[in-house]
Protein backbone atom coordinates (compact mmCIF):
# COMPACT_ATOMS: atom_id res chain seq x y z
CA UNK A 1 0.00 0.00 0.00
CA UNK A 2 1.53 3.30 -1.08
CA UNK A 3 1.06 6.23 1.33
CA UNK A 4 1.92 9.45 -0.50
CA UNK A 5 4.36 11.78 1.27
CA UNK A 6 4.08 15.27 -0.17
CA UNK A 7 5.11 17.17 2.92
CA UNK A 8 1.58 17.76 4.24
CA UNK A 9 1.84 16.71 7.84
CA UNK A 10 2.22 13.77 10.15
CA UNK A 11 2.71 10.46 8.33
CA UNK A 12 3.73 8.44 11.37
CA UNK A 13 0.14 7.99 12.55
CA UNK A 14 -1.34 6.84 9.22
CA UNK A 15 1.65 4.55 8.61
CA UNK A 16 1.38 2.98 12.04
CA UNK A 17 -2.42 2.71 11.98
CA UNK A 18 -2.46 0.96 8.58
CA UNK A 19 0.42 -1.30 9.59
CA UNK A 20 -1.33 -2.25 12.82
CA UNK A 21 -4.37 -3.50 10.85
CA UNK A 22 -2.28 -5.66 8.56
CA UNK A 23 -1.28 -3.43 5.64
CA UNK A 24 2.19 -3.54 4.14
CA UNK A 25 2.86 0.21 3.99
CA UNK A 26 5.36 2.01 1.82
CA UNK A 27 5.82 5.77 2.18
CA UNK A 28 6.27 7.06 -1.37
CA UNK A 29 7.57 10.35 -2.72
CA UNK A 30 7.60 9.59 -6.43
CA UNK A 31 5.29 8.00 -8.96
CA UNK A 32 7.54 5.04 -9.79
CA UNK A 33 6.85 3.79 -6.30
CA UNK A 34 3.16 3.27 -7.25
CA UNK A 35 4.31 0.33 -9.35
CA UNK A 36 3.49 -2.88 -7.53
CA UNK A 37 1.23 -1.12 -5.03
CA UNK A 38 -2.33 -2.43 -4.68
CA UNK A 39 -3.69 0.78 -3.15
CA UNK A 40 -2.80 4.46 -2.87
CA UNK A 41 -3.51 6.49 0.26
CA UNK A 42 -3.29 10.29 0.19
CA UNK A 43 -3.32 11.75 3.71
CA UNK A 44 -2.61 15.37 4.64
CA UNK A 45 -3.82 18.45 6.41
CA UNK A 46 -3.53 22.12 5.51
CA UNK A 47 -4.35 24.17 2.45
CA UNK A 48 -4.92 22.94 -1.13
CA UNK A 49 -2.66 25.22 -3.17
CA UNK A 50 0.66 24.36 -1.50
CA UNK A 51 -0.37 20.69 -1.49
CA UNK A 52 -1.11 20.70 -5.25
CA UNK A 53 2.18 22.53 -5.86
CA UNK A 54 4.11 19.87 -3.97
CA UNK A 55 2.31 17.03 -5.77
CA UNK A 56 3.12 18.70 -9.11
CA UNK A 57 6.75 19.23 -8.16
CA UNK A 58 7.15 15.57 -7.32
CA UNK A 59 5.45 14.52 -10.56
CA UNK A 60 2.61 12.84 -8.68
CA UNK A 61 -0.44 14.68 -10.05
CA UNK A 62 -0.63 12.78 -13.35
CA UNK A 63 -0.03 9.33 -11.83
CA UNK A 64 -2.68 9.92 -9.15
CA UNK A 65 -5.18 10.96 -11.85
CA UNK A 66 -4.31 7.87 -13.88
CA UNK A 67 -4.67 5.66 -10.80
CA UNK A 68 -8.14 7.10 -10.13
CA UNK A 69 -9.15 6.92 -13.80
CA UNK A 70 -8.32 3.19 -13.74
CA UNK A 71 -10.59 2.88 -10.64
CA UNK A 72 -7.85 1.33 -8.56
CA UNK A 73 -8.17 1.24 -4.74
CA UNK A 74 -7.69 4.72 -3.26
CA UNK A 75 -8.26 6.36 0.11
CA UNK A 76 -8.10 10.13 0.58
CA UNK A 77 -7.95 11.39 4.15
CA UNK A 78 -8.87 15.00 5.07
CA UNK A 79 -6.95 17.16 2.57
CA UNK A 80 -6.46 13.97 0.55
CA UNK A 81 -10.26 13.90 0.05
CA UNK A 82 -10.58 17.65 -0.58
CA UNK A 83 -8.02 17.44 -3.40
CA UNK A 84 -10.38 15.13 -5.33
CA UNK A 85 -12.86 17.99 -5.86
CA UNK A 86 -12.58 20.59 -8.63
CA UNK A 87 -11.17 23.43 -6.61
CA UNK A 88 -10.89 24.97 -3.17
CA UNK A 89 -12.41 28.21 -1.90
CA UNK A 90 -9.69 28.31 0.76
CA UNK A 91 -7.04 29.65 -1.59
CA UNK A 92 -8.59 29.37 -5.07
CA UNK A 93 -6.50 26.30 -5.92
CA UNK A 94 -7.53 24.15 -8.86
CA UNK A 95 -7.54 20.57 -7.62
CA UNK A 96 -7.83 17.13 -9.24
CA UNK A 97 -11.47 17.43 -10.34
CA UNK A 98 -12.27 13.75 -9.96
CA UNK A 99 -15.39 14.54 -7.91
CA UNK A 100 -17.92 17.17 -9.05
CA UNK A 101 -18.06 20.03 -6.56
CA UNK A 102 -15.81 22.37 -4.62
CA UNK A 103 -14.11 22.52 -1.25
CA UNK A 104 -15.90 25.23 0.74
CA UNK A 105 -15.69 26.68 4.24
CA UNK A 106 -17.97 25.04 6.81
CA UNK A 107 -21.11 27.17 7.03
CA UNK A 108 -22.49 28.59 10.28
CA UNK A 109 -19.85 26.74 12.29
CA UNK A 110 -19.96 27.80 15.95
CA UNK A 111 -16.18 27.32 16.17
CA UNK A 112 -13.62 27.23 13.37
CA UNK A 113 -11.44 25.24 12.80
CA UNK A 114 -13.73 22.29 13.52
CA UNK A 115 -11.48 20.39 15.94
CA UNK A 116 -12.52 17.32 17.90
CA UNK A 117 -14.72 14.24 17.88
CA UNK A 118 -18.01 14.41 16.01
CA UNK A 119 -20.62 11.95 14.76
CA UNK A 120 -20.41 10.39 11.34
CA UNK A 121 -24.00 9.71 10.19
CA UNK A 122 -24.26 7.34 7.30
CA UNK A 123 -26.32 8.19 4.23
CA UNK A 124 -25.58 4.91 2.42
CA UNK A 125 -24.38 1.51 3.60
CA UNK A 126 -20.84 0.65 2.56
CA UNK A 127 -18.38 -2.07 3.65
CA UNK A 128 -15.92 0.70 4.67
CA UNK A 129 -18.11 1.14 7.79
CA UNK A 130 -18.64 -2.57 8.49
CA UNK A 131 -18.78 -3.20 12.25
CA UNK A 132 -18.95 0.52 13.12
CA UNK A 133 -22.10 2.00 14.70
CA UNK A 134 -23.99 4.58 12.67
CA UNK A 135 -23.26 7.92 14.35
CA UNK A 136 -19.92 6.78 15.80
CA UNK A 137 -17.49 9.55 16.79
CA UNK A 138 -14.44 10.27 14.64
CA UNK A 139 -11.75 12.93 15.02
CA UNK A 140 -11.91 16.00 12.76
CA UNK A 141 -9.49 18.88 12.31
CA UNK A 142 -10.35 21.19 9.39
CA UNK A 143 -12.14 24.40 8.38
CA UNK A 144 -13.12 23.42 4.82
CA UNK A 145 -14.85 20.39 3.34
CA UNK A 146 -15.67 19.15 -0.14
CA UNK A 147 -19.28 19.82 -1.19
CA UNK A 148 -20.58 17.46 -3.85
CA UNK A 149 -22.26 19.39 -6.64
CA UNK A 150 -26.01 19.30 -6.02
CA UNK A 151 -26.86 19.15 -9.72
CA UNK A 152 -24.73 16.06 -10.11
CA UNK A 153 -27.20 13.14 -10.31
CA UNK A 154 -24.40 11.03 -8.87
CA UNK A 155 -24.05 13.14 -5.71
CA UNK A 156 -26.44 11.10 -3.63
CA UNK A 157 -24.74 7.85 -4.54
CA UNK A 158 -21.19 9.11 -4.00
CA UNK A 159 -21.89 10.34 -0.49
CA UNK A 160 -21.45 7.77 2.29
CA UNK A 161 -21.85 9.92 5.41
CA UNK A 162 -22.54 13.39 6.75
CA UNK A 163 -21.49 15.26 9.89
CA UNK A 164 -22.93 18.40 11.48
CA UNK A 165 -20.96 21.38 12.72
CA UNK A 166 -23.14 24.41 12.15
CA UNK A 167 -24.65 22.99 8.97
CA UNK A 168 -24.06 19.43 7.87
CA UNK A 169 -21.37 18.50 5.35
CA UNK A 170 -20.21 15.39 3.50
CA UNK A 171 -17.78 13.49 5.73
CA UNK A 172 -17.24 10.32 3.66
CA UNK A 173 -17.51 9.43 -0.04
CA UNK A 174 -17.23 6.29 -2.10
CA UNK A 175 -17.36 5.73 -5.86
CA UNK A 176 -16.14 2.42 -7.15
CA UNK A 177 -12.71 1.86 -5.65
CA UNK A 178 -12.33 5.53 -4.67
CA UNK A 179 -12.93 6.22 -0.98
CA UNK A 180 -12.46 9.42 0.97
CA UNK A 181 -13.02 10.60 4.53
CA UNK A 182 -12.85 14.13 5.93
CA UNK A 183 -12.05 12.87 9.45
CA UNK A 184 -8.82 11.19 10.62
CA UNK A 185 -9.31 7.43 11.08
CA UNK A 186 -5.66 7.15 12.15
CA UNK A 187 -6.49 9.39 15.12
CA UNK A 188 -9.95 8.04 15.88
CA UNK A 189 -9.20 5.21 18.29
CA UNK A 190 -10.86 1.83 17.92
CA UNK A 191 -13.46 2.81 15.29
CA UNK A 192 -10.78 4.52 13.21
CA UNK A 193 -8.65 1.39 13.20
CA UNK A 194 -11.71 -0.67 12.27
CA UNK A 195 -12.39 1.58 9.29
CA UNK A 196 -8.80 1.22 8.12
CA UNK A 197 -9.00 -2.55 8.57
CA UNK A 198 -12.16 -2.54 6.42
CA UNK A 199 -10.25 -0.58 3.78
CA UNK A 200 -7.37 -3.07 3.85
CA UNK A 201 -9.85 -5.92 3.42
CA UNK A 202 -11.59 -4.16 0.51
CA UNK A 203 -8.21 -3.75 -1.16
CA UNK A 204 -7.43 -7.45 -0.68
CA UNK A 205 -10.79 -8.41 -2.18
CA UNK A 206 -10.32 -6.07 -5.18
Amino acid at each position, binding site marked *: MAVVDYGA*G*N*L*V*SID*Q*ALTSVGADVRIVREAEAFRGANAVVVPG*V*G*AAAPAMARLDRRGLTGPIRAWLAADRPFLGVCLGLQLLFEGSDEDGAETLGVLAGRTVQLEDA*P*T*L*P*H*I*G*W*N*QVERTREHPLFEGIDDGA*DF*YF*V*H*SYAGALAAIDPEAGRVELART*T*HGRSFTSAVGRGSLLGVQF*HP*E*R*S*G*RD*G*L*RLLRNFVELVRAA
Partner: protein
Amino acid sequence: MLRRRVIPCLDVADGRVVKGTRFVDLVDEGDPPELAERYAREGADELVFLDITAAPQRRGTLLEIVERTARRAFIPLTVGGGVRTVIEMRDVLRAGADKVSLNTAAVADPTLIARCADRFGRQAVVVAIDALATGPAAWEVVVKGGRERTGLDAVAWARRAVELGAGELLVTSIDRDGTGAGFDTDLLRAITSAVRVPVIASGGAAGPDDFVAAVRDGGADAVLAASIFHRQIHAIADVKAAMAAAGLPVRLVPQAFA
Protein backbone atom coordinates in the same frame (compact mmCIF):
# COMPACT_ATOMS: atom_id res chain seq x y z
CA MET B 1 -22.68 17.56 17.59
CA LEU B 2 -19.07 18.31 18.36
CA ARG B 3 -18.01 16.66 21.61
CA ARG B 4 -16.40 18.61 24.44
CA ARG B 5 -12.93 17.15 24.88
CA VAL B 6 -11.16 15.95 28.01
CA ILE B 7 -7.38 16.19 27.63
CA PRO B 8 -4.79 14.82 30.03
CA CYS B 9 -1.52 16.75 30.02
CA LEU B 10 1.79 14.98 30.62
CA ASP B 11 4.83 16.95 31.77
CA VAL B 12 7.85 15.40 30.09
CA ALA B 13 11.49 15.94 31.08
CA ASP B 14 14.41 14.10 29.50
CA GLY B 15 12.01 11.60 27.94
CA ARG B 16 10.18 10.66 31.12
CA VAL B 17 6.83 11.75 32.54
CA VAL B 18 7.44 13.77 35.67
CA LYS B 19 5.23 15.34 38.25
CA GLY B 20 6.10 18.12 40.59
CA THR B 21 4.86 21.42 41.86
CA ARG B 22 5.45 24.03 39.21
CA PHE B 23 8.61 22.53 37.76
CA VAL B 24 10.35 21.73 41.06
CA ASP B 25 10.67 18.53 43.07
CA LEU B 26 10.14 16.43 39.95
CA VAL B 27 9.29 12.78 40.50
CA ASP B 28 9.70 10.21 37.72
CA GLU B 29 6.25 8.90 36.79
CA GLY B 30 7.07 6.60 33.91
CA ASP B 31 7.33 6.18 30.16
CA PRO B 32 5.32 8.77 28.16
CA PRO B 33 4.08 6.42 25.40
CA GLU B 34 2.93 3.89 27.97
CA LEU B 35 0.96 6.47 29.97
CA ALA B 36 -0.38 7.96 26.74
CA GLU B 37 -1.71 4.57 25.68
CA ARG B 38 -3.34 4.06 29.07
CA TYR B 39 -5.08 7.43 28.86
CA ALA B 40 -6.26 6.68 25.32
CA ARG B 41 -7.74 3.41 26.54
CA GLU B 42 -9.45 5.18 29.42
CA GLY B 43 -11.18 7.60 27.05
CA ALA B 44 -8.88 10.61 26.69
CA ASP B 45 -9.98 12.58 23.61
CA GLU B 46 -6.53 13.99 22.95
CA LEU B 47 -3.17 14.23 24.69
CA VAL B 48 -0.82 17.10 25.43
CA PHE B 49 2.89 16.64 26.12
CA LEU B 50 4.49 19.62 27.78
CA ASP B 51 8.26 19.30 27.39
CA ILE B 52 9.98 20.83 30.38
CA THR B 53 13.42 19.45 29.57
CA ALA B 54 15.90 22.01 30.76
CA ALA B 55 18.72 21.23 28.34
CA PRO B 56 17.96 22.09 24.67
CA GLN B 57 20.45 19.47 23.43
CA ARG B 58 18.07 16.81 24.67
CA ARG B 59 15.44 17.65 21.99
CA GLY B 60 16.18 14.37 20.22
CA THR B 61 14.78 12.51 23.19
CA LEU B 62 11.48 14.39 22.85
CA LEU B 63 11.17 13.55 19.14
CA GLU B 64 11.78 9.90 19.90
CA ILE B 65 9.04 9.74 22.54
CA VAL B 66 6.63 11.65 20.27
CA GLU B 67 7.16 9.01 17.60
CA ARG B 68 6.79 6.10 20.02
CA THR B 69 3.59 7.68 21.34
CA ALA B 70 2.15 8.25 17.86
CA ARG B 71 2.80 4.56 17.16
CA ARG B 72 0.88 3.41 20.24
CA ALA B 73 -1.94 5.84 21.02
CA PHE B 74 -4.31 6.42 18.09
CA ILE B 75 -5.63 9.73 19.37
CA PRO B 76 -4.37 13.25 18.58
CA LEU B 77 -1.21 14.53 20.22
CA THR B 78 -0.22 18.15 20.87
CA VAL B 79 3.35 18.95 21.88
CA GLY B 80 4.32 22.13 23.67
CA GLY B 81 7.33 23.52 25.41
CA GLY B 82 10.36 25.12 23.87
CA VAL B 83 9.37 25.19 20.17
CA ARG B 84 10.86 28.43 18.84
CA THR B 85 11.16 28.01 15.06
CA VAL B 86 9.30 26.72 11.99
CA ILE B 87 11.98 24.02 11.62
CA GLU B 88 11.53 22.83 15.21
CA MET B 89 7.78 22.68 14.63
CA ARG B 90 8.32 20.70 11.43
CA ASP B 91 10.46 18.17 13.27
CA VAL B 92 7.85 17.68 16.01
CA LEU B 93 5.05 17.21 13.43
CA ARG B 94 7.19 14.82 11.41
CA ALA B 95 7.82 12.77 14.52
CA GLY B 96 4.06 12.21 14.77
CA ALA B 97 2.49 15.16 16.61
CA ASP B 98 -0.71 16.64 15.16
CA LYS B 99 -0.41 20.07 16.73
CA VAL B 100 2.29 22.17 18.30
CA SER B 101 1.67 24.63 21.06
CA LEU B 102 3.62 27.91 21.01
CA ASN B 103 3.97 30.07 24.10
CA THR B 104 6.98 32.19 25.09
CA ALA B 105 8.45 32.21 21.58
CA ALA B 106 5.15 33.49 20.10
CA VAL B 107 5.04 36.38 22.56
CA ALA B 108 8.66 37.24 21.80
CA ASP B 109 8.02 37.11 18.03
CA PRO B 110 4.32 37.00 17.06
CA THR B 111 5.23 36.48 13.37
CA LEU B 112 6.20 32.92 14.38
CA ILE B 113 2.46 32.16 14.61
CA ALA B 114 1.85 33.36 11.05
CA ARG B 115 4.91 31.58 9.67
CA CYS B 116 3.93 28.28 11.29
CA ALA B 117 0.28 28.63 10.17
CA ASP B 118 1.35 29.36 6.57
CA ARG B 119 3.60 26.34 6.49
CA PHE B 120 1.49 23.74 8.34
CA GLY B 121 -2.05 25.15 8.35
CA ARG B 122 -3.67 26.94 11.25
CA GLN B 123 -5.21 23.71 12.56
CA ALA B 124 -1.72 22.61 13.62
CA VAL B 125 -0.94 25.81 15.55
CA VAL B 126 -2.05 26.08 19.15
CA VAL B 127 -1.13 29.24 21.03
CA ALA B 128 -0.78 28.72 24.78
CA ILE B 129 -1.65 31.75 26.88
CA ASP B 130 -0.62 31.82 30.54
CA ALA B 131 -2.74 34.51 32.21
CA LEU B 132 -2.30 36.20 35.57
CA ALA B 133 -5.26 38.04 37.16
CA THR B 134 -4.32 41.68 37.72
CA GLY B 135 -7.70 43.09 38.71
CA PRO B 136 -11.43 42.56 38.23
CA ALA B 137 -11.86 41.20 34.69
CA ALA B 138 -8.23 41.94 33.83
CA TRP B 139 -5.53 39.42 33.02
CA GLU B 140 -1.93 39.85 31.93
CA VAL B 141 0.04 37.40 29.79
CA VAL B 142 3.00 35.87 31.60
CA VAL B 143 5.77 33.75 30.05
CA LYS B 144 8.63 31.46 31.02
CA GLY B 145 6.41 29.22 33.11
CA GLY B 146 4.73 32.19 34.80
CA ARG B 147 7.94 33.82 36.00
CA GLU B 148 7.95 36.81 33.68
CA ARG B 149 5.25 39.43 33.07
CA THR B 150 4.77 40.86 29.58
CA GLY B 151 2.42 43.82 29.97
CA LEU B 152 0.11 42.22 27.34
CA ASP B 153 -3.62 42.05 28.03
CA ALA B 154 -4.60 38.37 27.78
CA VAL B 155 -7.84 38.93 25.84
CA ALA B 156 -6.18 41.32 23.37
CA TRP B 157 -3.32 38.83 22.89
CA ALA B 158 -5.85 36.03 22.30
CA ARG B 159 -7.48 38.08 19.49
CA ARG B 160 -4.10 38.94 17.99
CA ALA B 161 -2.89 35.33 18.09
CA VAL B 162 -6.00 34.18 16.22
CA GLU B 163 -5.63 36.96 13.61
CA LEU B 164 -2.05 35.81 13.07
CA GLY B 165 -3.10 32.20 12.50
CA ALA B 166 -3.65 30.32 15.76
CA GLY B 167 -6.19 27.54 15.18
CA GLU B 168 -6.76 26.88 18.85
CA LEU B 169 -5.93 28.54 22.19
CA LEU B 170 -4.78 26.78 25.35
CA VAL B 171 -5.65 29.17 28.18
CA THR B 172 -4.06 28.59 31.59
CA SER B 173 -4.89 30.59 34.68
CA ILE B 174 -1.54 30.89 36.42
CA ASP B 175 -3.34 31.93 39.62
CA ARG B 176 -5.33 28.71 39.67
CA ASP B 177 -2.72 26.31 38.26
CA GLY B 178 -1.85 23.61 40.77
CA THR B 179 -4.23 25.01 43.40
CA GLY B 180 -7.33 22.88 42.79
CA ALA B 181 -9.42 26.06 43.16
CA GLY B 182 -11.31 25.38 39.91
CA PHE B 183 -10.87 26.94 36.46
CA ASP B 184 -11.05 30.72 36.12
CA THR B 185 -14.36 30.76 34.24
CA ASP B 186 -14.38 34.58 33.98
CA LEU B 187 -11.06 34.47 32.13
CA LEU B 188 -12.35 31.66 29.90
CA ARG B 189 -15.59 33.51 29.13
CA ALA B 190 -13.69 36.71 28.31
CA ILE B 191 -11.55 34.82 25.77
CA THR B 192 -14.19 32.47 24.31
CA SER B 193 -16.42 35.53 23.69
CA ALA B 194 -13.58 37.28 21.87
CA VAL B 195 -12.50 34.54 19.43
CA ARG B 196 -14.10 31.89 17.20
CA VAL B 197 -11.39 29.23 17.46
CA PRO B 198 -11.74 26.43 20.02
CA VAL B 199 -10.43 27.23 23.50
CA ILE B 200 -8.88 24.63 25.82
CA ALA B 201 -9.28 25.46 29.52
CA SER B 202 -6.38 24.75 31.86
CA GLY B 203 -5.29 25.45 35.41
CA GLY B 204 -7.13 24.66 38.60
CA ALA B 205 -9.09 21.43 38.06
CA ALA B 206 -9.92 19.62 41.29
CA GLY B 207 -12.95 17.55 40.38
CA PRO B 208 -15.53 16.71 37.70
CA ASP B 209 -17.69 19.74 38.55
CA ASP B 210 -14.83 22.03 37.54
CA PHE B 211 -14.83 20.49 34.04
CA VAL B 212 -18.56 21.13 33.76
CA ALA B 213 -18.09 24.77 34.84
CA ALA B 214 -15.25 25.37 32.37
CA VAL B 215 -17.56 24.38 29.50
CA ARG B 216 -20.90 25.68 30.74
CA ASP B 217 -19.75 28.93 32.38
CA GLY B 218 -16.44 29.48 30.59
CA GLY B 219 -17.53 28.40 27.09
CA ALA B 220 -14.48 26.14 26.70
CA ASP B 221 -14.46 23.51 23.94
CA ALA B 222 -12.00 21.30 25.76
CA VAL B 223 -10.66 20.92 29.27
CA LEU B 224 -7.13 19.97 30.20
CA ALA B 225 -5.80 18.65 33.49
CA ALA B 226 -2.65 16.96 34.73
CA SER B 227 -2.36 16.04 38.37
CA ILE B 228 -5.90 14.86 39.06
CA PHE B 229 -5.47 12.21 36.35
CA HIS B 230 -1.85 11.28 37.16
CA ARG B 231 -2.55 10.87 40.83
CA GLN B 232 -5.70 8.94 39.91
CA ILE B 233 -7.83 11.20 42.06
CA HIS B 234 -10.42 11.13 39.30
CA ALA B 235 -10.74 8.84 36.30
CA ILE B 236 -11.42 10.33 32.86
CA ALA B 237 -14.64 8.28 32.81
CA ASP B 238 -15.85 9.97 36.04
CA VAL B 239 -15.22 13.41 34.58
CA LYS B 240 -17.07 12.51 31.39
CA ALA B 241 -19.97 11.01 33.33
CA ALA B 242 -20.35 14.27 35.25
CA MET B 243 -20.23 16.27 32.02
CA ALA B 244 -22.82 14.01 30.39
CA ALA B 245 -25.06 14.29 33.45
CA ALA B 246 -24.87 18.08 33.11
CA GLY B 247 -26.12 17.74 29.52
CA LEU B 248 -22.77 18.37 27.82
CA PRO B 249 -21.92 16.31 24.70
CA VAL B 250 -18.98 13.98 25.44
CA ARG B 251 -17.52 10.96 23.72
CA LEU B 252 -18.31 7.94 25.82
CA VAL B 253 -15.41 5.79 26.93
CA PRO B 254 -15.12 2.73 24.74
CA GLN B 255 -15.87 -0.51 26.55
CA ALA B 256 -12.97 -2.40 25.06
CA PHE B 257 -10.17 -0.78 23.12
CA ALA B 258 -9.11 -3.20 20.41
